[in-house]
Every structure is written in C-alpha cells, then in structure tokens.
C-alpha cells in the first residue's frame, strides 16, 4: 500500500504546503485546472495525494485512513481526543501560525487576566441570571483550559465563523478564537486576556500511528523520513 498524504483541498494553506514540500524535493502537482480535487506526488515513490478540508484531516489521521496529514496543531488537539496516542507530530512547518486566545470587550477595563475573568463570570451570573457565554468553535480546548485554571460559571456557545462579531450581536460576552495578528479582534472592540493564550499553533505535518505502514508504505516511510530529516515513528504508543 502506498502512503496517503492528506493536504488541505484549497486556499493559502494548500499553496504554502505545496511550496514547503517542493523545498524538500517532493512535488505535489494538482491535475487539470486546479479545481479538480486530485493530483500527483512526484520526486518520491509510493506517495499518493488526498485532498481534504483542513478540518477533516485530523479525523482521517485519527482513523488511520491517511498516513500523513498537514494541518493545524489547533485542529488536531481540538478534534482528536487523546491526540498524542493516535498521531505523531513530525515537523512544524513554520507557517500557518495562529494563536487560540480568550478575548473580552476592550471596555472591560476591570478585566486583565483569568482571575478577573472568573470573578466577572460569578457576578455576571448573579446579575443576569445565566452563565457568561463564550463563543467558540474550539469547545474541547477552551473547556480544558478553563477547567485547568479553575474558572467557573461560564457556558460555551457554538460559533463556526465570524466569532468576533458575537459579542456585539449579544449572543456571547467573550470569545475564544484563533488570531494571527490580533487586528480582527481590536477592530471588533475586543482584547486578549493577559494570560488568555490557550495554544500557539502552526501548520504541522502529522503521521497516523494507526495507518497501515507495511509493504510499500514502509519503503515510502523511510524515504520520507530521510527527505524530511525526521523520524516517523508509527504503531500504537510508539
């Protein structure tokens, strides 16, 4: 079986991923007009391209349906429970940087950090009769971060996009979202808590422990490891 390499199916992340592999002598050629979700991998044998939505790459890695996948560390940590049992972080690519942060309205002058945030959550609940709402699509990471820091009396509300607008729209009081420069946050009158950095993420090449790494895939694994200058440990709990 050849090695299935999962790449984002479109956008800037895909372009950068293709450049990144090209710099390592692995050439990903999109077929036809570039609209067709297919292509070939050249410069290395037995590697097959699978184009997927960036958000689906973690799931396919976890299931072992692809051997390698390039996606954000944020998505892997959010979408794969016990992620390090299922996938190996092989190489951080140095692009696709994004910070997952907890942000509140800039007008909250009394809130610098989590201590303040927690105190405000308590008084908000008393005053408004419901738990302070945090809009996010990163439910797992946000909940785990707040649990670790002992923050109580909040609730998560799902927001799959335009999360920075939820506070103004009165559907949330705070947000947990990805930011690269912080500009969208400040344009929406939000500020990051001093200790509100949940995760620094970048695009990373992951290997699936559970994929079938036998036969031709084993040869490709060794060739890839050499080309990328890294080990590719596979198998459960390697």
């Amino acid at each position, binding site marked *: 079986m050849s090695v299935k390499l999962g790449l984002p199916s479109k956008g800037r992340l895909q372009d950068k991923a293709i450049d990144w592999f090209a710099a390592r002598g692995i050439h990903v050629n999109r077929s036809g007009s570039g609209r067709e979700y297919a292509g070939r991998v050249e410069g290395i044998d037995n590697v097959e391209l699978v184009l997927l939505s960036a958000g689906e790459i973690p799931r396919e890695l976890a299931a072992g349906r692809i051997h390698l996948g390039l996606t954000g560390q944020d998505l892997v940590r959010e979408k794969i429970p016990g992620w390090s049992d299922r996938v190996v972080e092989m190489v951080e690519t140095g692009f696709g940087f994004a910070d997952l942060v907890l942000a509140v309205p800039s*007008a*909250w002058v009394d809130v610098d950090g989590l201590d303040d945030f927690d105190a405000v959550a308590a008084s*908000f609940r008393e005053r408004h009769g419901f738990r302070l709402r945090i809009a996010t699509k990163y439910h797992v990471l946000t909940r785990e971060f707040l649990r670790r820091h002992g923050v109580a009396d909040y609730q998560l509300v799902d927001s799959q996009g335009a999360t920075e607008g939820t506070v103004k729209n009165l559907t949330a009081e705070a947000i947990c979202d990805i930011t690269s420069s912080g500009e969208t946050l400040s344009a929406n009158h939000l*500020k990051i808590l001093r200790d509100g950095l949940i995760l620094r993420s970048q695009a990373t090449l992951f290997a699936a422990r559970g994929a079938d790494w036998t036969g031709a895939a084993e040869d490709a694994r060794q060739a890839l490891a050499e080309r990328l200058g890294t080990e590719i440990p596979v198998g459960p709990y390697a």
Partner: protein
Amino acid sequence: MAAGSEPVQTGRAYLDDGRLGESLGALRAEVGRCLMHFVQAGAEQVEPAALLPADILIDLYGEDLRARAYTTQDPVLGEFMLRPDFTVPVVQLHTELGMEPARYAYAGSVWRRRQPGTSSPTEYLQAGFELFDGSDPAAADAEVFATIAGALGDLPVQPVTGDMGLVRAAIDALDTSERRKKALRRHLWRPERFRRLIERFSRPGGAAADHGALLDDAAKRGAAAVIADAGAGIGLRTAEDIAARLDALAEDRATPPLAAADLDLIGAVLDLRGSMADAVRGMAAIAAERSALQPAADMLAARAEALAAQKLDPAALAFEAGFGRTTLEYYDGFVFGFSAPDAPDLPQIAQGGRYDALTRVLGQGAGIPAVGGIIRPEALLALQRRLG
C-alpha cells in the same frame, strides 16, 4: 473497524463477563442484595429517569459536565443528558413527593464519557441510599454511612471520611470582607483556584493588586469616563456592571490582607487528618482558640458520637479534611468513601456525603437537608471474586 470504535461489548465495567450467564446472575443478585439492605433500613424504592434535561445539570455542575457526561438532542424537547448520577433525579422525585423524613433506594446504570488516556468505564451500575431528614444531621450522616458500610459487610475495604463543613466554617470565621469569603466559598471544590485566591487575599491590594493605576484613574476622573475611553461598549455587560466591579475592586484594595492567624487557621483545618477521633480533638483545640468554629467542631463531635452509637469506632475510622475536595464537587458537609487497598485499579467501591447546598440550588433557595451514598456493584463483585 475504524480506529477509536470499541469492539462489541460483551464485558462491562470491572467485569469481563458480566453481561450474560452466571456472572450476570451473580451481579443481579448483588444489586438485589444491596437494594434489600436499603429497603430493610427503611427506604422506599424509586426508579429515576435515565434521560435528564441537560440545562438543569449543567447549570448545577458547570460546563465541565459536558466533558464527562453524554449529551443527546431531542428535536422537540431540546438537549438531554444520559444520567451521570442519581442525585439530581432523586432530589427531584423527593421534591414531588415532599414527605420528610424520607429514605430512598435505587439501582441502575450511570453513563460517563471516557476520558482520553484512561480506560474508565462508559457505563456502570450504582446502587444507592438517600436520606432526607433535617431533624438530626449528625444522626442522618451516621445512618447513611452505617447503612452503606453494612451493605459492604465484611469486605476488606478501607473507609475514609471527611467534612467539607470544617473548611466552610473556617472561611466564615476569617476576619475579612464578605466578598472575599464568598469568593473562597465558591471555589471550595477547585483547590488550585482556592489557593490562588488565598494568595491574592494575603497580599496588599488583594484582588485589586494589579489594578492600582486603573482604580486611581477611576477615582480621579470617574469610572464612566475611564470605561468610555477604553473602547466601544459592546455586549450585555454594561458600563454600570463594569463600574460596580471597579467599586468592588476598590473595596478589596482597602481590605487588609488576611492575617497570619487566619492563614494558619485555614491551613490547620485543611491539615486535619488521622482518625475521626483525632479530628474531633483537633477541631476542639482549634475551636478553643476561635469560638466561631465551635458549631463545626460540635457537629464533627456529634457525628462521631452518632457513629459510635452505630457501633462504628471513631478511633478506627480514617479522616482527611481534604477528602472530597476535588472529586466530589457538590458535597458540602460529611463525605466518605470506601476503597479497596488490595485492588488499586478498582474505583472506590462506595462513596457518599451530604449535599444540602445542591438541594438549595435545585429548589431555588428552599434547601432540603440531604445525605446519601452509592455502591458500585460491579466493582464490589470484581473485588469479591479476586479475593476468591
């Protein structure tokens, strides 16, 4: 089979073969025996629903519960949870029936989500006994403990007791603002944040230590101007809400740091350990110095006497003041657990405690004194088998 899915389950929690044949028979007999033991102790059998409205549970236990319990969606009725324990539905049944004193017995499955990196069971049985009786809390605590201990018989299990009421009493006795006490009480079950709060309140400036310049500015120009300068007012939290918190911070800045004697008091109470008899003596000594803790010391002593009256020797019962602070988050008085030292891989075979505060939240202010405990029949049977 896709990675991550489980094989068809023939086993069950703590028992590899508990879903059929002799093993199932033995388990059913064990559950029946526990229930009969509770019924003979005066309990009425109840059978709470397995699907519970999610909002009630999450409001009570917090958003964390989503990581631990299974949620499911009904298109008409909204979000439900698979019963993560029996406490809430039993309290609700009791509220419906409204008789006191009341004793209930129940048995059935509870469901918990698997925590990543663990092999914790997703479904397991509980057989429980709950007592609603406000007339004599010490006697009620002892009755529940003795009933659970009785159902465990001569199994080699190690009981541990604790009392969340002691640290609550210590907080009440602190020489500080009501606001600080309230913050500490709120985080009783989160030791890390509790420690942080104590640390902040021990420093000059307290919760406002990092806000000195802001408070000075607000005092000079008025809170409204400071808030307006900081950015567009968006969201439900109003400028008045923010100004009110600035007032609270100003009050906290003016509150003196917790005195060394107060810090020692919290430390001394949390450090109480040994036997329950030791704890009674320790608390008596603390209360002799700080009379505000006398009622809590008396309660501990009364419970020890009530246990002695049930032929349970307080000198032989282990006590840890911190027991129940992290895992048993809604208990606010007496707490207990029975672990199996010979089988460290098994969970506590039984546990329980008092949860007056939870009934107060559920009853929107009208609290019902309540204490109860559960046995894990699968773990109990697994232990019995290992012992041969």
